[in-house]
């Protein structure tokens, strides 16, 4: 098991490293002249030289790459070209906000989607099954930012049930209130991811319901509801875990879009600002951090999958 975790960890490190290298070359080679791009047409030759010196752009590409990676390893994300403050100071609070939103979204999406899938599977072929499957898939067709706008306009503006911004005013920033403000943005993410997760859950549950071991449980004299909770869910949810982890990149992407609509000072909003201002230092770090998050969730999912599945656990621990 330990070996398996180490192996997966090694793989993750390599993945992030490759992402770093690719990001570096994309930002340094493709747009051509970073300094010119950033400072604009009016900049003098001295301005450019000075800018390059400050940001280390006068060194050779390789030296820059290794310098940058070395800095990253020390937790030094460099300096924002736009604000001239450390990228860390800019991103850390934003990440904090985003984590809150992601957390609320996650705790809303996962249980609801799984419950939806289980209910659909248990009522296979009935109306409620069709409602969940068809409804979920239709909702997923519409992108999250459109949902966000629709939700803001309906429940936010017209019915005024939920606040239209994601961030409470100075007055009441209690945890509960913060969560309350984050629910609407989370719902727009839920609408997009629900159909997918519910469908996978449904398939897993149906397979387990039709399995021979479920038959064994029922023929032992277990009543159906109990047999489902004891024998079906664990086996059925195994594949779902992997699917949820694979949805984390979409969650992050959706997060960015939703933050912008709700004007929430999170990671996504900062990144968007960086894109608009061509702030390469912030962009690079943003991409690295996103890839780190994705890789970590994939790792957690893999380990969880192995721990829950005796067959893999055994293979893995040999």
């Amino acid at each position: 098991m330990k070996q398996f975790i180490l192996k997966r960890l090694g793989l993750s490190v390599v993945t992030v490293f490759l992402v770093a290298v690719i990001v570096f070359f994309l930002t340094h080679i493709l747009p051509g002249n970073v300094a010119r791009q950033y400072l604009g047409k009016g900049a003098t030759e001295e301005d450019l030289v000075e800018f390059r010196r400050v940001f280390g752009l006068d060194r050779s590409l390789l030296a820059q790459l290794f310098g940058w990676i070395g800095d990253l390893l020390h937790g030094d994300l460099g300096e924002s070209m736009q604000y001239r403050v450390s990228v860390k100071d800019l991103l850390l609070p934003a990440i904090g906000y985003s984590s809150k939103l992601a957390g609320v979204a996650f705790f809303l999406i996962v249980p609801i989607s799984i419950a939806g899938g289980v209910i659909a599977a248990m009522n296979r072929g009935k109306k409620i099954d069709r409602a969940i499957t068809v409804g979920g898939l239709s909702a997923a067709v519409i992108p999250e930012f459109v949902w966000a706008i629709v939700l803001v306009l309906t429940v936010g503006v017209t019915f005024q049930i939920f606040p239209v911004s994601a961030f409470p005013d100075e007055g009441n920033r209690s945890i509960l209130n913060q969560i309350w403000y984050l629910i609407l943005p989370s719902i727009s993410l839920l609408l997009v991811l629900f159909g997918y997760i519910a469908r996978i859950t449904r398939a897993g549950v149906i397979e387990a319901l039709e399995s021979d071991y479920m038959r064994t449980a029922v023929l032992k004299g277990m009543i159906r509801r109990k047999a489902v909770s004891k024998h079906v869910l664990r086996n059925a949810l195994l594949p779902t875990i992997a699917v949820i982890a694979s949805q984390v990149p979409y969650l992050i992407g959706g997060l960015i879009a939703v933050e912008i609509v709700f004007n929430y000072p999170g990671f996504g909003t900062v990144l968007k600002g960086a894109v608009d201002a061509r702030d390469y230092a912030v962009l690079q770090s943003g991409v690295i951090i996103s890839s780190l998050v994705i890789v970590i969730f994939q790792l957690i999912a893999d380990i969880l999958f192995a721990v829950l599945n005796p067959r893999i656990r055994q293979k893995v621990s040999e």
Partner: protein
Amino acid sequence: MSTTNTATLELRNLEVAYTVRGIDREVLRDISLSIAPGEAYGLVGESGCGKSTAAFAAMRYLPRNGKITGGAILFEGKNIVEMADDEVSSLRRSAISMVYQNPATALNPTIRVGDQVAEVFQLSGVSKSDSLEMAQAALVQVQIADPAQVMRRYAHQLSGGMAQRVVIAMALASNPRLLVMDEPTTGLDATVEAEVLDLVRELRRDTGTAVLFISHNLGVIRHMCDRVGVLYAGALVEQGATADLFNNPSHPYTVGLLRCIPRGGLHKSTDRLDTIPGTPPALGTHFDGCVFADRCALADDNCRTRLPQMVTISGAHVARCFHSDKASSMPRSIELIEYASQADVHSVHNDDTLLSINHLSKIFTQDGHKVQVINDVSFNLGFGETLGLVGESGSGKTTIAKLVLGLVSPEEGGVITLDGKGLAKTLNRRDVHDVGSMQIVFQNPDQALNRRHSVTRIVGRAVERLRGFNVSDAIDRAHELLSGMRVEASLHSARPVQLSGGLKQRVAISRAFAGSPQIVVCDEPTSALDVSVQAAILNLLVDLQKQDGVSFIFISHDLGVVRYISDRIAVLYLGRVVEFGTSQRVFNGPFHPYTEALLSSVPNIDGSIRKRIPLTGVVPSPSNPPSGCVLNPRCPRKAGSGYETLCETEEPNLTEVEPGHFMRCHIPVANLKQLQS
């Protein structure tokens, strides 16, 4: 009501239907039978006749599209068809249990075995810790080795035999008064099957549980049951005490079934197997008359228009037939075929060697460990000869076939010679002629045939590739081959899904014969087929051999089949040939101790009770073979032989103990002969 003369289970005029595409299709037709307390009732019949449906109906557990359309299922006099769900669950918790085929999938893969057995006790209100103790006791009762350790395992860590013991332990945990067993040993090795059957018999003696025992294997039924019912197309066609029914079968279907089986002593050189012409009716076919009329040699107009009733043969022995008195003397059904061969008719089997295999070994790497699955195997195969390979699962039968065919390459030192010419080790380095001269027929024709191609195309492509024919000649040859295998011309453009299992296997055989092979490897070619279809396929193989002089390497776990078709037999254990000789020698003895145990584990249909020579313990893993003779930890003849130390330290060689009869055992053959007489 008193329970003394109430049947434990009674099916009264039971009718069950499956709804397929909106139409109810009859599966069980007016079935009536009853099982007394403590009685074992066997239900036999070919695939699809409704055995499992009857079993699940008795548990009131039918598939979603299945429904009981008539009649009653009485458990101790109470009709479970009309019971509330709760009441049925409570019966299942306390009075009726079931054991099914495929024990491995019947256990939950993510819950420890012990917890799953304990669950049964918890369901009847026992506390968690007590239930675990009781579970362990239940495992002790089914004679599992090291029950404490098995408790903590998961399903995939159990062998087939162990898993079935766990399922049986679970079924018996509630002290049921009725146990339904649906093919409980199908798919298990012969020696494991014998052990499980012994166990069931012992437990039944101790507990007095009534059993509904379902199997397609007549030998197993004969040994396990007090009474037998024969099912055909969902109708009970004959019923009676086991001995009566087997000794005096009185329904033409039962007679036909018994005649199809290659039973004790029959051999291809002298006996042709009977078949049952035609195929079983499709699901839900409506009959005005007898369900068997289309295939019955005695059928007359009366049979086709009037429904026969059960008539008494003697005592409780009944048969549903107008002509039951003529059934046992009904004419034999042997298809005789005119050969239409391209090849010259060869003289049957002479002593010249066609294929020679020397010192073949194979080591696989599994999770970083080296596993020697084949250990120094040598044998010869003559022209027009059939070599049978027998042995339990994992003994290396299929790997040997693959080595011969070049699908896997042998280790250094292994040599394969065909007709005096050394063969390249792997298939892609063999030329077209060599490839065409050795072909294979698999157990499962479904997987072997391309489902998108027509039958003609499947065979035609093989002809093109192996014979270099152009497309239109290849198609002509394909038609010829298929007709020769008795696949009717009307089916030549069909796709595999439209064919029955037997027909698919004929197509697979046609394809194997596309390149005019010298050798055809048959890997369990009839194991997935019903006995009547099996008989037809075996007859076909024998015909082809007579006609083309082809040689076969025939792999099967069914010793009756191997005995019938083989000229010589190699018995394998843990990748080694432990005995090799003519069919006659290997089956009549003196036997190698392993062969002796294997043969004694087969329940034969003639009802003769052979003393079983048990093989104790489990088949060791080839990754960690025992020292000395690989059989020694399980050998039934080692103890008291005087060769114990030698057995445990030194591996015996394969030596010629009689002319043409080889064995790998330290005990001299004369001693073995004496022990076995």
